[in-house]
């Protein structure tokens, strides 16, 4: 392949060259941008759980409490027994399990959403340690302390050091946390040590009336899984917890993201691929027209001593160069589109199972959602796929066309002049 001839052909036929490059570029931009859009939504769907360091939240559906007095469990958080928690920890692909006890406390003068957590666990609401805005977080092994959601504390006029009653038991307020920094999953008014939550629940008549809650049980598990095995872990956890299992993951969030996302997620790859193929087809069309125009030139090349393989190499080189430049321009276009997409916000609704507030209380029926910037990013795999497809497509088609062109009989095309 002669580069100066290649450069002359491409640069001195600017209309044809730019239209061929633009065709490929638009196909590549569509392909890569749609992947970035879909991947942005996939990342967004992971965000609510990822914010608390988990990939999966596991719960179990239970019975509705007989009476809403004192401590009761929401009906989506029936007990998960210790042997089940241990079995979950041993599942292949499970990297960490955080456990929690969520309960409602109906008192004559107040209603509380309380979450018992292990402050040493970085999987699950233990992560709230990073969201402390005043005072301190719960310490390992301590009992009788609580931290409050900062908004709740402000509304109730709570101050650090104050004793807050939970189910009649005194808890000292040691800190405030900004739960908005940790997403809307496992959101509560007050956070207490897991052991306290287990003890209170075990002693609660309205819990024991409908649930077989044992002293060391939990009712929500937060599971971090190997990213390559998330799906198999979901299946295994669902199987472990039985038919009443409620297993939430990025997929649960993506299912409530809306039609636009579902279309892009399901058909984005296909539409992008179709766009890319149309781009390559347009390149093929431009090349075919180009070779028809250059039949005489190709005849001259044969006449003055270019072998068939010299001509094929030259013409295929032109096709591949056009495709390569088209891909690069397309990637720049895709980067621009992705930048624009990443400036938009996406609201991720939280499935009702993870909502800690009873729907029959004021505000409880409000849909919870996490709003974040769409984390759209060009994926290396999509960029390399576009590059590979465009180069392979143009090389194969270019060689095919060039092979036909190189069979031109010089005597015929030169005689016809």
């Amino acid at each position, binding site marked *: 392949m002669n580069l100066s001839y290649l450069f002359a052909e491409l640069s001195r036929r600017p209309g044809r060259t730019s239209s061929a490059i633009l065709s490929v570029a638009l196909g590549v931009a569509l392909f890569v941008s749609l992947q970035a859009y879909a991947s942005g939504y996939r990342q967004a769907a992971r965000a609510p759980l990822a914010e608390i360091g988990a990939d999966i939240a596991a719960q179990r559906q239970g019975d509705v409490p007989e009476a809403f007095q004192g401590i009761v469990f929401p009906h989506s958080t029936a007990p998960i027994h210790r042997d089940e928690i241990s079995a979950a920890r041993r599942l292949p692909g499970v990297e960490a399990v955080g456990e929690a006890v969520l309960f409602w406390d109906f008192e004559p003068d107040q209603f509380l959403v309380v979450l018992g957590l292990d402050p040493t666990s970085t999987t699950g609401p233990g992560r709230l340690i990073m969201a402390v805005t005043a005072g301190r977080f719960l310490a390992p092994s301590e009992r009788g302390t609580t931290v409050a959601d900062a908004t709740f504390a402000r509304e109730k006029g709570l101050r650090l050091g104050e004793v807050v009653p939970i189910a009649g038991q005194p808890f000292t307020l040691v800190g405030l946390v900004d739960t908005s920094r940790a997403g809307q999953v496992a959101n509560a008014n007050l956070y207490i040590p897991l052991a306290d939550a287990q003890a209170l629940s075990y002693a609660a008549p309205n819990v024991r009336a409908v649930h077989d809650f044992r002293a060391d049980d939990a009712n929500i598990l937060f599971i971090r899984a190997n990213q390559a095995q998330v799906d198999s872990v979901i299946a295994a956890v669902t199987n472990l917890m039985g038919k009443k299992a409620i297993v939430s993951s990025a997929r649960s969030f993506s299912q409530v993201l809306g039609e636009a996302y579902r279309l892009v997620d399901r058909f984005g790859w296909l539409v992008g691929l179709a766009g890319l193929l149309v781009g390559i087809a347009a390149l093929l069309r431009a090349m075919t027209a180009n070779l028809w125009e250059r039949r005489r030139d190709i005849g001259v090349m044969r*006449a003055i001593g270019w072998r068939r393989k010299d001509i094929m190499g030259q013409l295929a080189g032109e096709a591949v160069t056009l495709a390569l430049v088209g891909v690069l321009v397309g990637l720049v276009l895709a980067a621009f589109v992705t930048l624009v997409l990443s400036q938009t916000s996406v609201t991720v609704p939280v499935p009702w199972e993870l909502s800690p507030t009873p729907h029959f209380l004021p505000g409880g029926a409000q849909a919870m959602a996490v709003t974040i910037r769409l984390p759209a990013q060009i994926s290396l795999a999509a960029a390399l796929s576009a590059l590979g497809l465009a180069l392979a497509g143009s090389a194969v088609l270019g060689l095919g066309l060039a092979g036909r062109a190189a069979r031109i009989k010089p*005597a015929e095309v030169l005689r016809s002049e």
Partner: protein
Amino acid sequence: MNDVLQTENLDKSFGSVKAVQDVSLTIAAGEFVAIMGRSGSGKTTLLQLLAGLESPTSGRILFEGQDISHLDEDGLALWRREHVGLVFQAFHLIPTLSAVENVAFPLYPTSIQSKERRQRALARLEQVGLAQRAGHRPGELSGGEQQRVAIARALVNRPSLILADEPTGNLDSQSSAEVMELFRNLNREEGVAVVVVTHDSDVAAVTDRLIEMKDGRIVKHDSQAQRMPAYVVKEER
């Protein structure tokens, strides 16, 4: 004098049309020959056979004693690249390339470095009097200039044989005379054999030998001594 090209009983048919029939001729090294005839006489087909652009239906073509009739298309292309310069009536320059790039064009698929290609092309352009037009593209050159670029292109691979098909067919008389004078000088100074196909007797008159064709056959051989060169006559007036 050694023979550069020889044909033996050359025939070429297109279907039932016999374009060339039983042509046996010899071109000696350094000879300047015209093949003349009316339209349809088979002279262009004969030139294409000599150039390996068409394959003969029967007969042989020998180049410097070697039979080239059996070579495949790529073999013939290589043979042309190494030994033959071609000049066409319609110039057939590559429109996207400058004059110097067009001259260097036959060398593009070789291993010759681009700097040397350019130097050789510039030297040939200077030889045809167009060094100052090296950067111009064909569309910016006159017909005569384009044909001189085409002649420079035919010379760039230092051929021992130039085959020219109606090289003055698209030129005015002034340019035609200049082009034929160029061929004459190249023939004398470099000893390159030149075969010109023409229907123009003035053009044929410049050559050393005239081969006349009719209905695909050679009907007459004339040497220079037997003819009065037309351009010489014009100059003497």
